[in-house]
């Protein structure tokens, strides 16, 4: 004990909720695969214009219905447009519709769910009965009927899908807030004189973020499917703007379905892959963020 070696402060590994969640997520192999897959698809779709050798709307009447080749990697459609470029451009629209319509659901659902969960009483009753009614609604029927009335278009599609998806978000947020509002730090904030608005926005709502993250990932998956279905029927995104759904719509003609596989198959496979990846991701996020929830 002659010289005092300076004791290096040992790095303490603190287990924060975040790091524990990350660990649970990484253990979920399919979720990691989903994340990587989704990353690749997003990159491909976003940088599509740089990769593709043709514009998505470039008509080339001399090269109609060409099978895949060195020039046109996925062939061309009945007006000679490059399928590869169109599929990527369609992907931008489909992902955007999926994301934005889910955000519409999140905003509406969180607002109503937060009011219901935080204030309780008759506010809760009115809002939740409303949610019940919307949830028992045959959404596909209402969706198609609404779409038929308001007409097609990207913005309208986003709003229609968003307005049908919010009840689940409202339920999740409400359930979370019901338990959060009984916790001590809320009482502490009340005791310190914070008003409802401040407590709700600063103290209570940050706790619903994990629930919402899960909702968004699973919601985007189902919104992409809904958009595809609507556009497939010609009620969602309209040509010339391509979307994965309306690219598939050409396959309603049996000769295109049979003879020109490259015209519809890529969009179909991308829908399946994207939704599969998003579902894997959402499943993993749920296990990671909300370990108690059953599937």
């Amino acid at each position: 004990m002659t010289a005092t070696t300076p004791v290096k402060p040992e790095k303490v590994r603190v287990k924060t909720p975040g790091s524990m969640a990350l660990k649970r997520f990484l253990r979920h192999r399919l979720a990691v695969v989903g994340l990587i897959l989704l990353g690749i698809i997003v990159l491909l779709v976003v940088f599509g214009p740089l990769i593709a050798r043709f514009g998505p709307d470039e008509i080339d009447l001399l090269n109609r219905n060409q099978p895949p080749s060195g020039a046109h990697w996925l062939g061309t459609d009945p007006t000679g447009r490059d399928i590869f470029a169109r599929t990527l451009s369609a992907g931008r629209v489909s992902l955007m519709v999926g994301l934005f319509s889910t955000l519409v659901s999140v905003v509406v659902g969180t607002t109503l769910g937060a009011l219901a969960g935080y204030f309780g009483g008759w506010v809760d009753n009115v809002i939740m009965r409303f949610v019940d009614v919307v949830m028992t609604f045959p959404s596909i029927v209402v969706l198609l009927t609404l779409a038929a009335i308001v007409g097609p278009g990207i913005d309208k599609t986003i709003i229609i899908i968003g307005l049908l998806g919010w009840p689940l978000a409202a339920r999740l947020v409400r359930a979370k807030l019901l338990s959060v509002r009984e916790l001590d730090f809320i009482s502490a904030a009340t005791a310190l004189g914070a008003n409802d608005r401040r407590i709700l926005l600063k103290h209570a709502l940050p706790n619903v973020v994990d629930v919402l993250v899960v909702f968004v990932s699973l919601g985007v998956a189902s919104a992409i499917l809904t958009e595809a279905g609507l556009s497939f029927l010609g009620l969602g995104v309209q040509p010339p703007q391509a979307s994965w759904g309306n690219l598939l719509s050409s396959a309603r003609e049996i000769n295109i379905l049979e003879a020109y596989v490259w015209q519809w198959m890529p969009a179909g496979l991308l829908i399946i892959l994207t939704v599969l990846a998003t579902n894997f991701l959402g499943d993993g996020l749920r296990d990671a963020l909300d370990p108690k929830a059953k599937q």
Partner: protein
Amino acid sequence: MGLYTLRRLLISIPLLLVISAVVFTLLQFTPGDPLDAYIPPDQVLSAEQRQILKTDLGLDQSKPVQYFKWLGRAVQGDLGYRIKNGQPVIEELGRRLPPTLLLMGLGMTVGVTLGIFFGIVAAVKRYTLLDNTLTFLAFLGISTPAFLAGLLGMYVFALKLGWFPAGGYQTPGDGGVMDILRHLILPAMILSVTYIAILMRYTRSSILEVLFQDFVRTASAKGVPSYRVISKHVLRNALIPVVTVIGANVANLIGGAVFLESIFSWPGTGQLYLDAIDSRDYPMIMGTTLMLAIIILLANLITDLMYGLIDPRIRYS
């Protein structure tokens, strides 16, 4: 049980009213004169005649009054006339319902049977390669929308392999039971895919939850053979919540049927509905909307009743 049934029945009435009110409200946003829905398109009426009919139908009164009059007519089956061909909407609906019920019935039966079966297999063989494969396939199933499964199924099984006819209800000039069945199988199988996937996942997790409870261990400990533990002790308890899932997904089934009928030219309600949407045939659209909503509501009601029937604990709640 009687009281429970009665209460469930009564609860669905206000819901039906709300749905009809929504349909009526949507009707108000459709372009054109609502009166035209009640005039067969081949008839030309003079201005006075139109006015008389308008008063007769109550279309000159306030919206709430109009709603109740509309509801009164709807209850008696008067949903107006198709704009497209002047047929009464209700008759068209009646004609197109049986093929849809056939398609949905087979799709649901196959879906429920296979879904529960694979769910049991996956749970019993949990964490093995078989379980992982089934779970992956289930994910694939819920990630594939019905119309895409329809296109792929038609491409592979009808166009490439030629195992099934590529759509239609019957071969002209034939139309026997076997012929219809041959046309029915492919769309019905494809319709069942989503159901299989959802039910498999749900059954699996529901069984896993029951599997580790004390009474199961007790049964095993006293020497009950494992297949009996599964069939008598575990399934009895695990399948109760599965019934709810079956009912809750009838709406999905209808959605799938709408798309598949269109792809396979199956002459059912779904195809009728899409035709109506394509030609903006609003009386037809609204009639179908109302009917599909009622079917879904009935499905929910039946589920609730089944639930009370198979789970004795719920009876007096």
